[in-house]
């Protein structure tokens, strides 16, 4: 009884304190919270490198509303796998996406297209509209534009607090409309890559897809030290989902995996027909995803543990598990945060090492399977990331931090001829961040 009385008085006192500080809080709310950041991402062996400066700023509007703005630039260079595989003792010649020039890959080397370069600008805005004391809607809009790709998106997230603000229900709906305008035109699905300057097989100039996501989630304060989150997302993608720059090798003999060559069949006699022994990939035009995401933050009085797990499943046959663990180790005036991430996925049903003449493709070049791709990102794979972050809070609510990470991705190709395996991908990232109040 006594305890209840004290509890009641404490509640009244807390409310009074909050009310007394509210003018200060709204004064502070007229300032911008700014995050500036720079990312360098680099893959080994001359593959992709990205330089990505970004700025994000948010401020309160009135008592309860808030606006957030984001600008990200992205410069990409380097080489990216074209979908064919390395072959011992055989050099392979490919045509660039423009259709106007060619490049040759040495025997035993992974075929990479080094004509790839891109600059991307992405803008985002979120507006938090307070509905009442316990609920709000966050309206979002995004635009991302690059040389051959345009993404436009809108979203709405409804959040409502319950249970003395210890429980929050989140319902989100997102809609994106993307269009791709590939270099050299949209390649005809399953049509052969042609010798340079003999006319690329194209089906048009551009394609589109729509992405719809519905998310239902709950965040829950467990106790003074622990908060957890559970989200279920249902996603649906409809429209063009091929990678227009990826090809699949055609072979007559799966035991050797050698590309069909010469005059048998005459369809792939490149000297006469201009057809190289590679066809452009084809993926389904629909994809349904289910994602379960769990996160827990736990404070150890000094240090903080950040744990997350994601289960992903889609109707392309891809299932994945993602585990993340970060441990924020508090030093005197700064902190160190080791990070580890483990990711594992199964292959898409239509992931193929090659198409076999006779069973998958006939002598006239008609492909007999519904879909095929040799994009390594659709293969069975594992990614391990090890990272370390150092953060240094400074005066006036500002903070400087730097983070480095090493990423290793390994693909399990299954049973393929020796030397044709997808090599591991090693990458490093370096992020520098400065946050301040303006």
């Amino acid at each position, binding site marked *: 009884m006594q305890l209840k009385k004290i509890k009641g008085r*404490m*509640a009244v006192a*807390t409310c009074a304190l909050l009310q007394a500080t509210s003018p200060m809080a709204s004064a502070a709310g007229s300032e911008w919270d700014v995050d500036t*950041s720079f*990312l360098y*991402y680099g893959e080994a062996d001359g593959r992709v490198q990205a330089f*990505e400066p*970004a700025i*994000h700023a948010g401020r309160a509007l009135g008592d309860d509303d808030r606006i957030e703005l984001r600008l990200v630039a992205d410069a990409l260079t380097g080489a990216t796998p074209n979908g064919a595989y390395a072959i011992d003792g055989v050099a392979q010649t490919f045509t660039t996406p423009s259709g106007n020039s060619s490049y040759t890959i040495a025997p035993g080397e992974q075929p990479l297209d080094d004509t*790839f370069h891109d600059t991307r600008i*992405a803008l*985002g805005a*979120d507006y938090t509209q307070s509905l009442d004391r316990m609920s709000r809607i966050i309206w*979002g809009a*995004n635009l*991302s534009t*690059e040389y*051959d*790709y345009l993404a436009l*998106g*809108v*979203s709405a997230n409804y959040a409502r607090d*319950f*249970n003395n603000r*210890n*429980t929050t*229900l989140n319902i*989100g709906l*997102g809609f*994106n409309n*993307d269009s*791709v305008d590939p270099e050299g035109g949209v390649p005809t699905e399953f049509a052969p890559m042609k010798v340079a300057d003999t006319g690329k097989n194209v089906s048009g100039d551009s394609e589109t897809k729509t992405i719809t996501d519905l998310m239902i*989630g709950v965040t*829950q*304060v467990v106790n*003074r030290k622990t*908060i957890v989150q*559970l989200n*279920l997302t249902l996603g649906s993608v409809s429209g063009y989902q091929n*990678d227009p720059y990826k090809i699949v090798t055609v072979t007559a003999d799966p035991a050797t995996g050698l590309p069909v060559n010469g005059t048998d069949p005459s369809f792939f006699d490149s000297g006469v027909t201009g057809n190289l022994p590679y066809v452009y990939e084809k993926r389904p035009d629909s994809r349904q995803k*289910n*994602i*379960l*995401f769990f996160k827990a*933050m736990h*404070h150890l009085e000094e240090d*903080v543990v950040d744990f997350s797990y994601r289960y*992903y499943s889609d109707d392309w046959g*891809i299932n*994945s598990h993602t585990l993340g663990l970060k441990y924020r180790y508090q030093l005197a005036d700064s*902190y160190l945060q080791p990070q580890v991430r483990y*990711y594992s996925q199964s292959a898409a049903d239509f992931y193929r090492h090659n198409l076999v003449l006779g069973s998958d493709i006939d002598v006239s070049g008609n492909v007999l399977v519904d879909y095929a791709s040799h994009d390594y*990102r659709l293969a069975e*794979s594992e990614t391990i990331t090890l990272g370390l*972050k150092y953060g240094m809070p400074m005066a006036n609510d500002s903070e400087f*931090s730097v983070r480095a990470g090493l*990423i290793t991705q390994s693909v399990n190709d299954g049973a393929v001829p020796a030397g044709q395996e997808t090599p591991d991908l090693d990458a490093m*990232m370096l*992020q520098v*961040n400065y946050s301040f109040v303006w």
Partner: protein
Amino acid sequence: MIRITTLVLLMMLAGCAGMGVEPWERDLLAKDSMQLTPDYFENFYDEHIYFSKEASSGGQGVGGGGCGCN
């Protein structure tokens, strides 16, 4: 999976009534380090990198821009 998750979400909502803290016990929860996304761009860059290298993405929320990442 959807049914199980919906059930878990409902159970969480119902079971959550017994959990939580009083307003004056939010000292640790209020810290920046205890926010579900403590570092805006760390999360943003990670999502972007893995989106372009892996077949799975999403889960933390809806919205955000796409890209034709190679």
